[in-house]
């Protein structure tokens, strides 16, 4: 009974088989009722297939329906809920979750929307009535009325008894120490998603997946994240910088304390900062974390790197001498002058002590352009440094690096790096030669040194501690020489580049200190942006008069907290190699 077989034609009525157009047309127009039985059967099949498809689709929807309400679905997609606590190195809480409730509404269940708006705004007066009315006017199944309300507000809203208005428990992120560690912690938004700082780092570690899989229900299920930050030191550092910023009328300040043997950041402050519990101004342009998002020419602090390079390369030793006669050097059309000109021939410790530009340049040129570049690369000054903090900036490296660049970078101009990057390098200069990437998480010395490359010889490191100590005793770092702590340090004053020119009266000052110099434990850094001179400084606004003083005060306050006992008798043989070599200043 197959009607559509090819032999149809042969079975067609006789007249249709006649050749010619008429026959063809007739065949075309003839209705073959005998085919209809099969064709109707085919239609039954088609209908069956169509109904089966609808049935399958219905069953799929039945299987897919989870019976959950729109509300729970909306809440689960809109909030990630919980976060682990963040603790400082001593277990003090820096960030934690607090249970709170949020009010939501189901507009389609609200009978009188105007009444609901009136009642809700009476209880929650900071709600915008027009906005709320518009929200309730939509046909959506779920809208937020107000997030994270107080228990008293919850009771009041509850008492209103508006149908279609309900509460969802939520977690509110709180930072009990206010702005103290703002730039390290970052913050989480109202949906408890980490937006910046360590909070964002935590999210990148797969927390969301864990919660999504249902393993973690409350924040106590999550292991707290312990930072290397010491809240007490953090507070003291911020306090001193705040005082300093006021006294020196600087536009910004930053500071850090680092454990030189583990790379742990004990404190990190960048001012101005923000309150992570209410980070309304966190995205203002001047609120960046100047320690790792800002890049700066570090000035004379970089001379320490130059001297270390020269000593470590063997092109110089501690007793090498450099003439500063003439007080200036020419590179083509450019002239570089001595700042504290002596005109004498200087030994290496003296170059450091007098912060001699010419001495530094001669040392760098002795190593050569390529050697200089390779050394800075090894010291991680030419690439972006990444830590746990998601925010970071790449250094600004000269495009073409010639002799003039080596000359200026030797005394800290022409290469802009993040201060965090610079202190990692200085840490390596004093800790025996290990370049340790700074961390914000607690770790041990063994863990830190396991993958820290040795970048300079221990003897070179001793020489650097020696010259820094001499500078602390007799040089520009005297302002930070807190008795009993054997402080070594280096000032750095760089003229700020404004519109492509060095501005004579706008300084960027840094002070780096190592405590104690003989067996270094901590590195201190203070930075001021555009500090002004004041009466006691005689109008000077160089590093010693602001960053230096602040560092001294910080050391004085925090060294006892960090468990460093003051030693009122100077150590017997602090720098044995230097003494053996008879370096300048040991006698």
């Amino acid at each position, binding site marked *: 009974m197959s009607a559509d077989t090819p032999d149809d034609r042969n079975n067609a009525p006789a007249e249709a088989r006649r050749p010619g157009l008429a026959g063809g047309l007739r065949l075309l*127009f003839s209705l073959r*009722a005998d085919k209809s*039985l099969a064709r109707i059967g085919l239609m039954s099949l088609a*209908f069956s297939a169509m109904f089966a498809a609808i049935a399958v689709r*219905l069953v799929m929807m039945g299987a897919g329906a989870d019976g959950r309400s729109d509300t729970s679905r909306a809440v689960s997609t809109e909030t990630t809920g919980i976060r682990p606590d963040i603790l400082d190195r001593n277990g003090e809480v820096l960030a934690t979750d607090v249970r709170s409730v949020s009010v939501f509404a189901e507009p389609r269940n609200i009978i009188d929307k105007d009444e609901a708006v009136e009642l809700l705004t009476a209880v929650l007066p900071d709600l915008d009535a027009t906005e709320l009315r518009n929200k309730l006017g939509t046909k959506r199944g779920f809208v937020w009325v107000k997030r994270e309300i107080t228990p008293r507000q919850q009771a009041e809203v509850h008492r209103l008894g508006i149908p279609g208005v309900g509460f969802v428990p939520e977690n509110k992120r709180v930072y009990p120490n206010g702005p103290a560690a703002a730039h390290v912690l970052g913050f989480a938004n109202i949906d408890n998603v980490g937006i910046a700082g360590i909070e964002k780092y935590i999210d990148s570690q797969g927390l969301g997946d864990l919660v999504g899989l249902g393993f973690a229900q409350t924040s106590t299920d999550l292991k707290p994240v312990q930072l290397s930050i010491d809240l007490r030191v953090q507070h003291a550092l911020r306090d001193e910088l705040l005082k300093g910023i006021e006294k020196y009328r600087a536009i910004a300040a930053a500071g850090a304390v680092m454990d030189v043997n583990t790379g742990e950041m004990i404190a990190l402050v960048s001012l101005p900062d923000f309150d992570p519990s209410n980070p309304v101004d966190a995205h203002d342009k001047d609120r960046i974390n100047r320690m790792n998002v800002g890049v700066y020419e570090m000035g004379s602090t970089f001379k320490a790197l130059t001297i270390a390079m020269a000593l470590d390369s063997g092109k110089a030793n501690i007793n090498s001498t450099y003439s500063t006669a003439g007080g200036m050097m020419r590179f083509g059309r450019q002239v570089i002058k001595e700042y504290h000109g002596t005109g004498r021939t200087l030994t290496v410790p003296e170059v450091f002590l007098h912060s001699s530009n010419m001495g530094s340049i001669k040392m760098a040129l002795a190593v050569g352009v390529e050697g200089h570049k390779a050394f800075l690369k090894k010291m991680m000054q030419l690439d972006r440094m990444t830590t746990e903090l998601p925010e970071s900036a790449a250094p600004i490296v000269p495009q073409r690096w010639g002799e003039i660049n080596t000359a200026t970078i030797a005394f800290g101009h022409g290469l802009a790096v993040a201060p965090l990057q610079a202190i990692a390098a200085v840490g390596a200069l004093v800790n025996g030669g290990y370049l340790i990437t700074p961390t914000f998480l607690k770790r041990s010395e063994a863990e830190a040194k396991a993958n820290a490359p040795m970048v300079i010889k221990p003897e070179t490191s001793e020489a650097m501690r020696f010259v820094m100590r001499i500078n602390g005793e007799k040089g520009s770092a005297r302002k930070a020489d807190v008795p009993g702590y054997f402080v070594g340090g280096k000032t750095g004053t760089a003229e700020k580049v404004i519109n492509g020119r060095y501005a004579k009266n706008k300084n960027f000052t840094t002070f780096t200190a190592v405590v104690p110099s003989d067996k270094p434990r901590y590195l201190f850094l203070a930075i001021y942006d555009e500090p002004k001179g004041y009466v006691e400084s005689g109008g000077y606004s160089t590093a010693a008069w602001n960053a230096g003083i602040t560092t001294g005060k910080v050391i004085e306050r925090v060294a006892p907290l960090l468990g460093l006992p003051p030693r009122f008798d100077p150590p017997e043989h602090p720098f044995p190699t230097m003494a053996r070599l008879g370096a300048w200043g040991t006698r």
Partner: protein
Amino acid sequence: MVSRAERTLVGEWWWTVDRLLIAGLGLLMIAGLVFLMAGGPPVAERLGLSTFHFVNRQVLFLVPAIGLMIATSFLSLRHVRRAAMVTYAFAMGGIILALHFGPEIKGAHRWLSFGGVSVQPSEFVKPAFVVLTAWFFAEGGRKSDMPGGLLGILLLPATIVPLILQPDFGQTMLITLVWCGMFFAAGLHSLWIVGFGGAGILAALAAYEFVPHVRARIERFLDKSSGDSFQIDTALSSFSRGGWFGKGPGEGTVKRILPDAHTDFIFAVTAEEFGIVVCVAVLCLFAFIVLRGLLLARRAEEPFCRLAATGLILLFGLQASINMMVNVHLMPAKGMTLPFISYGGSSLISLALGMGFLIAVTRKRPRSEYMDRIVRPFSRGRSEA
């Protein structure tokens, strides 16, 4: 019950009609009223009518509809054709009147008002068109003096051109599809099928290309984010909220925001309140009626009966499937009601008329009545033997 001992009009009717088909249709009407109690009130409330306005109206229409269906099913074949012809004439007249004098509702002129009663004449044209087409094709097959095939072909443009002018693309598409199905069943040469298939594809492409509203609908179907998909999103959320067993009668909430909850989207409302299991049951009921109808069509040996039954059941089945497929998002949105379940007076009366015709043409008849026109499946083989 009805006695077989003596030949009465009713007795003859009772024993010759397909009682399973009638039972299926009756069940559908009852189910429709129950579902309308879910889908009607939210729309009635929105329009400021009394809660059960649509249910009451539907009952009001259902009584004459059932009467019309049963009355029609008593008709002889000759009277079926005449009734169809008269209905067709009136309906086409109505369509043309509506085109010129009807009020514009949602950009189309589809309605005629007679003293407070609104009628959609295009609804009535559908069953009449099917019966007439079946008649023409059947005559064409007999090679009588009447140029049946040609008339059957010409009837299509004559019917759909005024519909396109209204415009009413939904009805146009439905009528064209049914006509193609009947054409197919009538046994025209396979070349025609290829030709019409190609023309159909071309027409669909042209509509997509040149009619912005068609294009928008299809794009919205393929990519939900491309535009306003509120209607279908809401319908789908009805299904997911209902789950297997539904929220319970009167417990639905999505229906309150679902447009056309009482007409085009009543299937989704049913899912929310009565559950997907009930939806599958409704689907099975439709499938039963359609497959039963097609089986009866195959059994009918008289060509007109067979074609008319096929066409009428196609009309019913396609309308139901398209509506359900739109509801479950297997097809782009298309305004089509669910037969006997969606609210609508014109639609109900027209369906009753169509089903009355169907019952009439599928009645058992003594072969002697139509011996000369019989379709013999094996006649070919016999003539060659």
